[in-house]
Every structure is written in C-alpha cells, then in structure tokens.
C-alpha cells in the first residue's frame, strides 16, 4: 500500500474557494503524519494532470474537492476530472473521498464496480452556509465551519488508520455533535436555522464498497 494521498483543490468561485481553504487546512494539519500529500492546487486541478498523477503515484487515498453531479466530479473551472462510464477505473484500488455534490449517486457505484476499494461521498447536494464578509478569509467563517469542519473529518479519520466505514461513521458523529450543540440552549436562534442543512449533509454522506478498506495502518 502506498502512503500517498492525491488531493484536488480547485478554486474558481466562492464555493470552491471555501472548500479549498478547508481542504488545504486539513492537508496542512496532516502533513507531518505518515501520509505524503500530493496537492493539485487551482489551475493544476485539471483532468490531464490528475490522470498523470494517479498513474505516477498510485495513491492509496484520493481526496476530491470541487463541484460535482450524480455521475461526475470536477476540478478547476469545472473541468470534469472523473465521470462514470469514462474513467472511473482510474480510481481502482484507492479509497476515494469526494467532497462534492451528489457523486455517490452514480459515480460512486460505478467506481466500486470498477475496483475502487471504497468510495465515500454524498448522494445529494452538499450544502453549506457562509458569511459573505469572510469570502477572503474562509477559515475564520464560523458559519461555514459548522459544515466544512465535519466534512473534512473523513480524511482526518482515514489518516489515523481508521477504515472507510469507521471514518464515515465518525464524520456523521462529528456532524451529529454539531447538531446536538445547535439544539442546546447555548446556540443562537439564527444558528438553529442551519440544523436541517447539517442533517441533510450528514444523511447524504455514504461509504460504498469495502467498509474495511484502509489507507494507512493504525
């Protein structure tokens, strides 16, 4: 098993800028651990570079950030990186996590059929709220944090040696603790309005394929 993680971090609109900032933070936090991260940032998150890096490094974990749809995941400027029926076999042998909308509907099952060890993703749109005044400082956005911190926990958990199934359950647990916090008296009325969207994201997260797949030892 390689100890390499291939990460795509496009950043071409406010949504991808936000998820990219949080993905970069996650990578930075995990860099000193046992995994080696290869980051395709912004203009490097293209189909040709992604394909080339997959072949060259044979990563054990692929962490995709970007827009998506039921059968695809995009890179920078919405260039399609992966599409069911075209190149899902490129993920063969990897654990893949797509922080992207809806790709677990069609692309995930197709990737599993093509030999991906496990595909973790969302079977509905991934939704988050943000504060417009924080657009240039997404990490400081406490509203977005309620959604993006748990969403990045999949990778944190996998990096600790947990299985794909355990990482998914732990991430749902992270969302759930946030939800419990919101229903407590400590939260503001405004914050409680995000409850249904956090529940939506939590329920949309699924792990397909081998639940026991790992990317590194414990």
């Amino acid at each position, binding site marked *: 098993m390689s100890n390499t993680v291939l990460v795509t971090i496009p950043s071409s609109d406010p*949504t991808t800028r936000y998820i990219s900032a949080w993905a970069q933070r996650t990578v930075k936090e995990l860099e000193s651990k046992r995994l080696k991260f290869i980051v395709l940032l912004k203009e490097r998150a293209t189909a040709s570079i992604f394909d080339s890096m997959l072949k060259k490094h044979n990563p054990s974990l692929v962490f995709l950030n970007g827009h998506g749809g039921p059968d695809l995941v995009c890179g920078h400027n919405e260039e399609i990186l992966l599409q069911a029926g075209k190149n899902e076999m490129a993920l063969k042998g990897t654990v893949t996590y797509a922080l992207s909308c809806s790709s677990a509907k069609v692309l995930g099952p197709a990737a599993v059929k093509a030999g991906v060890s496990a595909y973790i993703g969302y079977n509905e*749109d991934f939704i988050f709220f*943000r504060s*417009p005044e924080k657009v240039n400082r997404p990490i400081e956005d406490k509203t977005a944090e309620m959604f993006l911190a748990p969403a990045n926990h999949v990778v944190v958990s996998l990096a600790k040696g947990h299985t794909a199934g*355990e990482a998914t359950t732990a991430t749902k*647990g992270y969302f759930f603790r946030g939800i*419990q916090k919101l229903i407590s008296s400590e939260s503001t009325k405004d914050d409680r309005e995000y409850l249904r969207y956090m*529940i939506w994201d939590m329920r949309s997260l699924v792990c397909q394929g081998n639940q026991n797949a790992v990317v590194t030892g414990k």
Partner: protein
Amino acid sequence: METTQEIIDLVIARLQNLPSNKEISIGSSGELTKDELIEHVKKDDEIGKKMIAIEMDFLRSMKEGIFYEQYSTSNHS
C-alpha cells in the same frame, strides 16, 4: 411533480427565518441569499424543489427520531 401550494407556503415560512446576512452554497447552483431562495421556491424550479426536499427530509428525520440516533461519539476516530 408539481408541489402543492400548502407545502410551498410552509417552506417559504420556514425560509423566512434564515439569517439575512448569510449565503447558502448549493453546489454548482452557486451562492444564494435568503430572498433568492424564497423566489426559487415560489417558482417551484429545480433549486426551489431542492429546498422543499430538504424541509421534507428534516420533518421526516424528526419523525424518525434523528436527535436520538447513535453515531460514534469518539473524538479519536
């Protein structure tokens, strides 16, 4: 399928409570304000239907006891 006016009104009433100073990001649909969301629900278009689906899912999940679901609560996972 067309959404009943009763459901549309319910979802609009719920969306009115969202903070006005935040934006929602819904995948490639981009970033929307509360007022824009409400307009989509009134039109019952694709984004409006998504908002309705989220509300219905929330109501269903409460009925199913979502707040009592058990997930791993370990901080070490």
